[in-house]
């Protein structure tokens, strides 16, 4: 017989007990490995999502809001040798069911015939004919559309002129067509094609690019190129882009004007952007640069000429305040040399606000109306003006009063069109009329027509597409990086399932201990046979290893099931977290090995501890079982060094918490026969934890120290540990006390104390479980009353809205309100937004550049609260900090402050007084010469979505291709701004000048008018693709993610408790089986079965109640913030139901187990001697 055989035989002999223990370990293994599997599955699914949204497309070239020629794609393909597909992408809305079903933010993708093959799709998207569309499956499902069905497709107009360009009409913002569904694109057909980094499928409408061009009134234009070359280098692609670029791709018009015999460089966008103007000026230093503007009136005294063009040019060598007018104007006004003219014109604000301004000009010259002087070509092409037959047909971007238009004006228009009536110096003109869209309207070069080619080449050379909003994106690479950097669900579920894992390990420990204790007499036998303690340990460890392996492998099977269960739940129940239906279960062998290794290590550690602590150190047999003097007191393991350590530590602990009470208490619990210093030690540690927990609690309650809910959670946690340690002391105390009286309850308590480790384990399991459930429940977030206040997460706003088509006007202006019939008591905060990825908790991918939204910060003063801020944030006017000029890369150290996460702004709330310096660090050094812009974002997004901290900088590329740094100067407490970074509108427009209109809105109104306004505003903005929700709903949507995590945590916590209670039942059953002799004795002593049953039930009921009682008070400490007035109220009813349910569940198990165990078999057989 070899040792191995002995171990195997023992394992088989005690198979039932061993398998029960293995079951506990299997649960722990399942949770650990399951977490790995879930992590792998999520990672794989996110990667899969990238492939499913991009197919074979690896890169894209986009142009922001600009359109370029389809031919640029051909040139690009030719230069790079990479297959490309051209697309015109627009946003739109779908209306079906006669208007009953609407879908906003639909992605309309006009594609060519190469798109499908590049994607790898079996559907030929490019083959869709005029008015025919292929829609994604999710859209078909949402609108209940099938092939051959029709619906209305309203699209945001794609044009070369930015919508908010001054002097350009804002009419026709959308184009609507009735379209027919020809096919439905499933996921396999890449129906979820998306350029954005997101696991969520967009609503897609695929159309033919030519048809889309026609619908948009364009000809051969695109705004995206798709490439398929995995190995393509972005730098090379940028170079190819530059090489492929022609002036028309930057919407420049270069033509030779035979009428004036000059080459004109102008822009289809009306104004030539400043940086391009500068390049052109450098390239053509002798060129005549012109800025022509439309003015409301030119007056001299009582004479007034309405609606004229004035050209700012270098042609006449004019100085500031000087003007040369044409003879028509001179006659009309009766003006002569040296007369002063008053010119009125509109300056256009970011939301098309028109502010009339005046300028005085002195006439220094009058020119004739001959061809060379009266040049109508100096008027830029302005749709609605240039193509108008008469003045009365004008459709300009400024209000035109037809009453002011005289016959003379009509005659002038008929004869001279938009020929400028006056000229000023370019310098003066640019001072007056430069706007964010540009500072020139044309550049004139003298020369021959044959020079045109040369001019074009020069323009191509100096114009950098990357500075005109063009971007080369490594879609696949960025997508995969974002997927890899996303939320680690492995860690997440490891954490969420921690309690179940703990329950499993404790169950394993308890059951192993049972097994080992049952066989403790064997230790004496082995010892008597000359086995060394090491050898005995080896035997038990060997058996423990077999149990661990059995449990581990069973756990792997369970892990796969657990993983599948979680996957199913994530898809069907916990959709709020993942928001995708792409999850697949991935079982990675390395994860299995990892999970198994961890659980084996835990199991062996626990077994080793159990053997050393409870088996080898115990007397070999029960002394009272010996035939003679009984207790020989022999223990294989003596408490030697550890005991000394305990005594020393205990003494220290006692000193730390010195006091007469403590001494009395220690003296009281001192065992009568044998002083056990571990009691003192445990009590000392318990008191230390109590002290720490109470101190932390008092500091938070009374001194203003505020660590938020986490601080209270920590206080509660410390007190929980203290309570559990005190329970241990109590059990020791009970075990060692001698009573002069006895009753049923004392008998039960005595029985509990008999095996204090088992009792304590059960109490710990239950206490931890109830603590986790109650404390977690308090973290649930709901947009409660407090959140509706201005300083709450909704900012006090009633609605949050987003529009597919930007709103160009100021919704707070009197004119717009009258025009749109907006109710008088409704206020708007309008935000411009950049095109970017969603960085809210709704996106599982790691997003580097969340959407920038911009507004006038003064609208937000006194709104929202700051969870964290820096030195850069002005405490008095935190939102005004967005207008601050930052010192750029020389930024010094910033102090990060933590504020009250509950309520109050940094300026007005309690946070003002409670700000505490918790960390100081250097602001992340920005890259050289990168301008820094102050920005504010939601703290949750900064921390979790971006993996950043307040004080860090987010780097973006602006519309001009320049890098800008958004320095996060403050972090908002839980707010509706999740997923966005907020900056000042003024700064935003400097960097993203062609952004037109607002697409994100906060709406202020009386809360009791919610339903009425929902309908009214929905109607007003119907055509904008208006999506509106109450701010509370939006906040709850974000909260739902966190709440879902909490729900999972609670659910798994409850599962852990169930496991704990089930474990309690198993322990109870084993314990009863072990105590059959005792129970038989009760029978022989005349106890009725019901009385015996009551003894058992009472014992375990005490454990159940003890566990709950130990867990509930610390949990209440942990939820103090939720109990404070005005806080997010927890639902006490829910928690009470939970506690009662756990109690009843435990009671059921206890009663049933007791009845079953006592009923079965003949108890008195144990007393049989023969």
């Amino acid at each position, binding site marked *: 017989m070899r040792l191995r055989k002995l171990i195997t035989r023992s394992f088989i002999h005690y198979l039932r007990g061993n398998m029960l223990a293995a079951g506990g370990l299997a649960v722990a293994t399942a949770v650990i490995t399951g977490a790995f599997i879930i992590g792998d599955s999520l990672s794989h699914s996110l990667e899969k999502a990238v492939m499913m949204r991009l197919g074979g497309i690896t890169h894209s070239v986009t142009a922001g809001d600009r359109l370029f020629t389809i031919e640029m794609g051909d040139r690009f393909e030719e230069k790079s040798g990479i297959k490309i597909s051209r697309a015109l992408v627009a946003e739109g809305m779908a209306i079906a069911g006669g208007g009953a079903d609407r879908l906003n933010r639909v992605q309309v993708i006009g594609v060519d015939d190469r798109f499908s093959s590049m994607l790898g799709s079996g559907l030929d998207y490019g083959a869709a004919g005029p008015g025919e569309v292929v829609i994604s499956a999710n859209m078909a499902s949402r609108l209940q559309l099938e092939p051959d069905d029709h619906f209305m497709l309203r699209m945001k107009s794609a044009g070369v002129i930015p919508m908010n360009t001054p002097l350009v009409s804002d009419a026709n913002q959308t184009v609507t067509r009735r379209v027919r569904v020809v096919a439905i694109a499933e996921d396999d057909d890449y129906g979820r094609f998306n350029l954005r980094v997101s696991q969520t499928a967009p609503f897609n409408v695929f159309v033919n690019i030519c048809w889309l061009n026609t619908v948009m009134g364009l000809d051969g234009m695109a705004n995206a190129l798709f490439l398929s070359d995995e190995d393509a280098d972005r730098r090379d692609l940028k170079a190819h882009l530059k090489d492929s670029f022609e002036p028309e791709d930057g919407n420049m018009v270069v033509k030779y004007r035979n009428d004036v015999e000059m080459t004109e460089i102008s822009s289809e966008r009306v104004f030539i952007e400043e940086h391009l103007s500068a390049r052109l000026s450098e390239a053509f230093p002798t060129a005549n640069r012109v800025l022509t503007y439309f003015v409301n009136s030119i007056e001299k005294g009582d004479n007034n000429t309405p609606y004229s063009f004035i050209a700012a040019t270098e042609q006449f060598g004019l100085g500031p305040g000087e003007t040369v007018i044409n003879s028509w104007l001179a006659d009309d006004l009766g003006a002569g040399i040296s007369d002063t003219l008053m010119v009125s014109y509109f300056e256009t604000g970011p939301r098309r606000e028109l502010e009339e301004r005046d300028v005085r000009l002195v006439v220094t010259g009058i020119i004739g109306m001959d061809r060379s002087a009266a040049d109508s070509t100096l008027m830029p092409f302005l749709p609605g003006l240039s193509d108008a037959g008469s003045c009365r047909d004008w459709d300009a971007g400024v209000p035109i009063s037809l009453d002011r238009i005289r016959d003379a004006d009509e005659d002038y228009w008929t004869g001279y069109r938009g020929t400028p009536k006056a000229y000023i110096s370019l310098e003066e003109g640019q001072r007056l009329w430069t706007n964010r869209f540009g500072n020139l309207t044309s550049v004139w070069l003298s020369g021959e027509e044959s020079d045109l080619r040369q001019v074009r080449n020069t323009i191509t050379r100096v114009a950098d597409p990357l500075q005109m909003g063009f971007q080369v994106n490594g879609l696949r690479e960025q997508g995969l990086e974002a997927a890899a950097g996303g939320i680690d669900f492995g860690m997440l579920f490891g954490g969420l399932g921690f309690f179940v894992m703990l329950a499993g390990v404790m169950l394993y420990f308890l059951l192993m201990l049972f097994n080992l204790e049952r066989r403790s007499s064997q230790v004496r036998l082995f010892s008597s046979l000359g086995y060394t303690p090491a050898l005995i340990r080896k035997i038990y460890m060997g058996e423990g290893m077999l149990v661990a392996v059995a449990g581990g492998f069973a756990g792997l099977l369970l892990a796969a099931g657990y993983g599948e269960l979680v996957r199913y739940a994530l898809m069907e129940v916990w959709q709020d977290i993942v928001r995708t239906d792409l999850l697949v279960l991935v079982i990675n062998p390395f994860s299995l090995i990892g999970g198994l290794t961890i659980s084996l290590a835990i199991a062996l550690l626990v077994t080793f501890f159990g053997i050393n602590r409870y088996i080898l150190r115990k007397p070999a047999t*029960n*002394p*009272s*079982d*010996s*035939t*003679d*003097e*009984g*207790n020989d007191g022999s223990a294989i393991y003596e408490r030697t060094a550890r005991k000394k350590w305990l005594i020393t530590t205990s003494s220290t602990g006692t000193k730390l918490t010195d006091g007469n009470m403590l001494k009395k208490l220690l003296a009281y619990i001192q065992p*009568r*026969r044998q002083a056990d210093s571990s009691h003192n030690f445990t009590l000392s540690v318990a008191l230390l934890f109590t002290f720490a927990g109470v101190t932390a609690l008092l500091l938070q309650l009374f001194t203003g120290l505020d660590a938020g809910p986490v601080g209270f959670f920590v206080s509660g946690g410390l007190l929980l540990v203290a309570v559990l340690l005190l329970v241990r002391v109590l059990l020791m105390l009970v*075990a060692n006390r*001698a*009573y*002069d*009286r*006895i*009753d*049923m309850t*004392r*008998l039960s308590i*005595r*029985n509990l*104390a*008999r095996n204090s480790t088992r009792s304590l384990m059960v109490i710990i399991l239950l206490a931890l479980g109830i603590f986790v459930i109650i404390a977690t429940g308090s973290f649930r977030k709901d947009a409660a009353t407090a959140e509706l206040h201005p300083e709450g997460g909704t900012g006090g706003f009633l609605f949050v809205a987003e529009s597919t088509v930007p709103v160009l006007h100021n919704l707070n202006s009197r004119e717009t309100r009258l025009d749109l019939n907006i109710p008088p008591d409704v206020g708007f905060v309008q935000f411009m937004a950049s095109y970017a990825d969603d960085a809210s908790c709704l996106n599982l991918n790691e997003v580097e550049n969340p959407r920038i939204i911009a507004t006038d910060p003064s609208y937000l003063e006194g709104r929202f609260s700051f969870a964290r801020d820096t030195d850069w944030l002005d405490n008095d006017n935190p939102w005004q900090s967005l207008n601050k000029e930052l010192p750029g890369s020389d930024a010094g150290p910033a102090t990060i402050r933590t504020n009250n996460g509950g309520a109050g702004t940094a300026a007005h709330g309690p946070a003002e007084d409670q700000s505490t310096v918790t960390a100081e660090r250097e602001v992340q050094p920005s890259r050289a010469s990168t301008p820094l812009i102050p920005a504010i974002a939601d703290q949750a997004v900064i921390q979790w979505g971006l993996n950043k901290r307040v004080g860090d900088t987010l780097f973006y590329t602006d519309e001009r291709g320049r890098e800008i740094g958004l320095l996060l100067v403050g972090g908002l407490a839980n707010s509706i701004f999740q997923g966005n970074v907020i900056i000042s509108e003024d700064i935003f427009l400097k960097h993203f000048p062609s952004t037109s209109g607002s697409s994100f809105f906060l709406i202020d109104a009386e809360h009791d008018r919610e339903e009425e306004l929902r309908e009214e505003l929905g109607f007003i903005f119907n055509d904008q693709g208006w999506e509106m929700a109450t701010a509370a709903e939006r906040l709850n949507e974000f909260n739902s993610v966190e709440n879902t995590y909490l729900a999972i945590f609670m659910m798994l916590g409850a599962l852990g408790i169930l496991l704990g209670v089930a474990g309690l039942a198993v322990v109870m059953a084993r314990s009863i089986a072990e105590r059959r*002799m*005792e129970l*038989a*004795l*009760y*029978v*022989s*002593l*005349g*106890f*009725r*079965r*019901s*009385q015996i049953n009551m003894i058992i039930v009472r014992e375990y009921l005490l454990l159940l109640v003890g566990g709950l009682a130990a867990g509930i008070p610390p949990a209440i400490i942990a939820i103090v913030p939720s109990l404070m007035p005005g806080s997010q109220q927890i639902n006490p009813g829910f928690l009470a139901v939970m506690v009662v349910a756990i109690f009843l569940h435990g009671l059921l198990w206890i009663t049933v187990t007791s009845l079953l165990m006592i009923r079965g078999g*003949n108890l*008195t057989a144990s*007393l*049989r*001697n*023969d």
Partner: protein
Amino acid sequence: MLLEARNISKSYKSRYGRTIREVLNGLSLAVGEGKRIAITGPSGSGKTTLLNLAGTLDFPDKGEILFRGYSLSGMNTAELAAFRNREIGFVFQSHHLLPQLTLWENVLIPALPLNGNMKEVYKRAEELLRETGLWDIRHQKPGELSGGECQRTAVVRALINKPSLLLADEPTGSLDNRNASILTELLTSLSARENIAMVVVTHAPGVASGMDKIYKLKEGRLTENSDS
């Protein structure tokens, strides 16, 4: 007559109902008030079975057991429990003291189901413990006592409710000679003083010799030992 067993038979069956072994076969026994009887016999002869039947821990297949003329078979389990509690005292080969309780608490256990006046019980426990020399160590637990002390405690526990009948199953079986002798003396003296009838199953001649009658159990029946 205190206890009367009439023609009792008892066999052990398998879980499928098949008789494995017939232990008692038409056995009869009568024990008068205050009488002391020893039952001897080889291992497996059914001594403990007989004791368990007498103590209502088990039930005969056939025959009847009467206690003071009343048949025990008509009692329900609650009545039987109360009967055992008041009228029967058990002493086993192993003391079966509860290790989690002190000696004092152990001897008080039989009083718990009574829900009666515990003062009297405490007084009696003190008397018995003093008498048996265990009073000074009453707050110790079984693990801290010797085997003899434990078994003496078991005797006190058996007598705490002043039973009419003491059933002792190899009470000295796990003791050395000295302790066995002390225990035998204790059992006989206490039963004589309190007029408690006693049925002792034993292999030990020293124990059996102190009894009024000695029966030998063989082949399921009792035969009176001619020496007694």
